[in-house]
């Protein structure tokens, strides 16, 4: 194994030129002849039934080819693995903005114009759309991993403790809203359909689309080499992918179906609203005695999903008495789904705010307080850490950030009309490798050896192409320019998804295994003994082999499960709060991350600061608001749903702790996609408290909350 020359260096994205020249093909960028265009019609009630459609005006419009409704669509398998229902299979309406019809026309504009001429008559029934009301009916979850997790006796420990915090922290509905809205082109050839469709898990998209269409997986091909962001919303797939296929079959032509920005809000999932009740207790020396983290949230009608807000609380601190629980109630909303840092980003806001509150009561520096409660093994299961470098994150971060300049008394540091505060908060995310396969192909042209690496991996725009090429360059002994990476296609060997921070570890390890395997096979084939092990590239030349390929299947190490393996981070924020207006500026933000081997410091930094930016949005600006009378989002474009603008972002710094941890996987790659957002909102909320003395426990912290 030669893994040190190209991996670990800040190589530019190998697909960068394609992207900046507009040549990278996203789902609807394929020049396909004879395309027809779809436009979805959505329900304008949250609960009830469709009584009738008036399609007459729409059908007469120029260019209209067909209109699909539940009355004329083919029977689909609603349990095929797609998320969110809305497959036009019945008259039932479960949420506002559910798909009710699909217009197919010669052009997008014609389809849209016709869609607006459709009248739908509904029978409305009372919906569960006001969280404030329905939360009182929340019940324990059906999911086994969301059952109450009890260690010791929280209530007694809490009752007897000298110092405690007992507060509720609220986080709103958020939306993923990747730059590329969910889009599909569907093309049939006989009984086989190709779906160009941004997919974070290629093989899962293939299986779900096939099952829903009542086809075999091999009849469906997913093509998704480049994805314009997903943040979890392109992990599971939604009705639109299959409706495109059904439409294409119906009109006998390829169909292009792209959601509009407005339609995204109720088509492809969301981060659910959470109410987190934290009870935290400590003795006078700052030793934690009790931690209860009880979350109340909502699912969809007949469908449950809970992001694990209590996950950080399970493992962050050494506490003898602990309770983690979830209560859930259905709502007439599209099903919530995995959203960057699922559970951890929202849960850490609650936990790390409460820790800050308790540290303040104890008059202990919040970093010191965390150090006093550092667990030597995983408190939730007693397993040893494969590696846990949180203390280093805190210490190195404090030094780099200038934490000593913080005044523990809030509201003491000002400049002009601004109050200045520092905050810290920690985060974590599990490190895992998932089974994946890959093909390594070598060809020799004269003295030049070139490689092609093939696997059905996904690149969300985060740099998968590049880290695969880097790993192969080292593994084969080739310059990165001689390596081609093919991914994002279900015809390639199956691989893990780019979800849950498993992508980099799974892809790098399988590619590395493949490089070792092909080198071994070429060695065997040569029948020679070498004093110094040659590279695969050298063997291709010395043995005059024109072409050779091998396929490899990789699995995580067998003993990985005996350890607790996670990435950790410490986040530091400096905020300036305008005394008159309550507007907050995050002047500086530093994320210190221990995430094992960093394959590419450049793309890794981009991942982390990207997570930081969303975390800043989570802390200060992002909220999807429902009108509790109708059940619709009144925030339905980027004018209302505020992602941070450039001007909202101050200086972002990122430090990676040098960490070698080969227990979760051979290469020691822990993954960084999720952890970058975890702890961010907490650090900012804590900094705002330090600046102003105001503790805001409800995100986002908009100016009105600081008046």
């Amino acid at each position: 194994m030669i893994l040190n020359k190209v991996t670990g260096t800040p190589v530019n994205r190998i697909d960068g030129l394609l992207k900046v020249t507009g040549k990278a093909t996203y789902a609807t960028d394929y020049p396909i002849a004879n395309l027809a265009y779809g436009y979805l019609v959505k329900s304008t009630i949250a609960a009830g039934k469709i009584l009738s459609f008036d399609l007459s005006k729409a059908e007469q419009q120029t260019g209209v080819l067909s209109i699909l409704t539940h009355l004329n669509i083919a029977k689909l398998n609603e349990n095929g693995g797609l998320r969110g229902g809305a497959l036009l299979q019945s008259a039932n309406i479960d949420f506002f903005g559910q798909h009710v019809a699909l217009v197919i026309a010669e052009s997008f504009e014609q389809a849209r114009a016709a869609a607006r001429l459709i009248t739908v008559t509904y029978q409305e029934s009372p919906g569960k759309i006001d969280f404030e009301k329905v939360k009182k009916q929340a019940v324990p979850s059906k999911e086994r991993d969301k059952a109450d997790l009890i260690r010791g006796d929280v209530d007694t420990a809490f009752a007897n403790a000298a110092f405690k915090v007992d507060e509720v922290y609220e986080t709103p509905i958020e939306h993923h809203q990747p730059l590329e809205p969910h889009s599909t082109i569907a093309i049939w050839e006989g009984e086989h359909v190709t779906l160009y469709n941004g997919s974070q898990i290629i093989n899962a998209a293939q299986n779900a689309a096939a099952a829903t269409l009542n086809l075999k997986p091999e009849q469906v091909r997913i093509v998704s080499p480049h994805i314009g962001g997903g943040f979890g919303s392109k992990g599971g797939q939604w009705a639109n992918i299959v409706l495109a296929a059904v439409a294409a079959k119906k009109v006998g032509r390829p169909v292009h179906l792209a959601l509009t920005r407005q339609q995204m809000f109720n088509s492809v999932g969301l981060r659910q609203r959470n109410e987190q009740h934290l009870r935290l207790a400590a003795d006078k020396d700052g030793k934690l005695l009790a931690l209860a983290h009880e979350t109340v949230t909502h699912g969809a009608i007949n469908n449950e999903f809970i992001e694990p807000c209590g996950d950080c609380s399970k493992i962050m601190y050494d506490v003898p008495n602990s309770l983690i629980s979830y209560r859930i109630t259905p709502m007439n909303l599209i099903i919530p789904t995995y959203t960057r840092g699922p559970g951890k980003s929202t849960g850490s806001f609650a936990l790390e705010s409460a820790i800050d509150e308790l540290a303040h009561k104890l008059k202990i520096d919040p970093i010191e307080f965390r150090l006093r409660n550092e667990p030597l093994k995983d408190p939730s299961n007693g397993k040893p850490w494969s590696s846990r470098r949180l203390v280093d994150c805190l210490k190195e971060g404090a030094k780099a950030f200038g934490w000593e300049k913080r005044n523990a008394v809030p509201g003491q540091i000002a400049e002009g009309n601004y109050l200045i505060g520092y905050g810290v908060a920690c985060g974590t995310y599990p490190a895992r490798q998932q089974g994946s396969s890959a093909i390594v192909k070598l060809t020799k042209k004269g003295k030049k050896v070139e490689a092609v690496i093939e696997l059905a991996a996904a690149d969300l725009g985060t740099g998968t192409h590049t880290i695969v090429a880097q790993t192969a360059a080292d593994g084969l002994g080739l310059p990165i320019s001689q390596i081609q990476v093919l991914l994002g296609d279900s015809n390639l060997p199956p691989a893990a998804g780019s979800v849950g921070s498993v992508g980099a570890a799974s892809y790098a390890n399988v590619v590395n295994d493949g490089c070792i395997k092909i080198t071994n096979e070429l060695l065997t084939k040569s029948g020679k003994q070498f004093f110094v092990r040659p590279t695969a590239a050298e063997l291709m030349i010395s043995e005059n082999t024109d072409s050779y390929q091998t396929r490899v299947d990789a699995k995580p190490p067998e003993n990985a499960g005996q350890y607790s393996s996670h990435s950790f981070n410490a986040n530091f924020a400096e905020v300036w709060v305008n005394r008159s207006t309550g507007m907050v500026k995050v002047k500086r933000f530093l994320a210190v991350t221990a995430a094992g081997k960093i394959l590419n410091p450049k793309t890794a930094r981009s991942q982390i600061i990207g997570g930081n930016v969303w975390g800043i949005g989570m802390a200060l600006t992002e909220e999807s608001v429902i009108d509790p009378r109708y059940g619709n989002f009144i925030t339905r474009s980027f004018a209302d749903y505020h992602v941070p603008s450039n001007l909202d972002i101050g200086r972002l710094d990122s430090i990676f702790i040098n960490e070698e941890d080969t227990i979760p996987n051979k290469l020691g790659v822990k993954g960084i996609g999720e952890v970058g957002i975890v702890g961010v909102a907490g650090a900012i909320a804590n900094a705002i408290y330090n600046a102003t003395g105001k503790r805001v426990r409800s995100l986002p912290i908009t100016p009105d909350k600081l008046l």
Partner: protein
Amino acid sequence: MLDLMKEDVERPTELVDLSRLKLAEIAEIKTGANKGGLSLGSLGKNSEAANHKLVRQRYPLLAQAILAGASAQIRNMATNGGNLMQRTRCPYFYDVAMPCNKREPGTGCGAYEGINRMHAIFGWNKDCVAVYPSDMAVALAALDAVVNVQLVDGKQRAIPFTDFHRLPGKEPEKDTNLLHGELITSIELPSNNFASHSYYLKVRDRASYAFALVSVAVGLELSDNRIKNVRIAMGGVAHKPWRALDSEKFLIGKEATEANFILAASEEMVMAKPLEHNKFKVELGKRAIARALLMAMNHDTK
């Protein structure tokens, strides 16, 4: 217009292209009531107006307000006349599945008992609680600008800025007092003595590309720290740019002190009638007026 057509809010059967008219000039006014002032052609771009030397020298308040609006890309495309013709960003107006008297008279106001955090605290009625979105117009209201318009038959008239936009009254579907067929030709800025003491303060949910929760345009004319003349206009609080006349009245002849600014702010804000979700705008408006006056006095445009 394009945005509204994409959202199905506007459904015009015909559109007239004005872009070839020669109405983009920025020029000093040589004759008439506003002689010595500046005229902005209605088809001039917002970014050109904001960056024009004479605008920056004589009407820094306007330059500041324009630059506080939208994004650089939008300002490069947006015209001065078009800016005045913006429609409300009320989400109930924008969503055709919702009731809205402005979009479809007689359907009711979705926001009145709905989510009205962004909505009016002055001049509203149960039929419409929308606010007017432009930043530029708030400065123009403070500057007592005049809108020159021309009818199809060539007839011209000049509309004082405060009469250009309307309160909802019984016809919330009407944003302005323009007559059918009237075209904005230019916006006139009368000369004034505010250039050295003016400020535009915009409070919003994010630092750029967000509509105002509350904004305040202030022009002060001082004589030995005594307030000789003052104009205060607010955005984000009403169906039109809102002149804080009671605050202005309070301040004339008084000393320019922070204490007086705070008192003046209360004079206007005590009249506010907030809705369920925008009660914060009363306190925010008070602070914003006082702060903007202070910034104008200190001539601090940072």
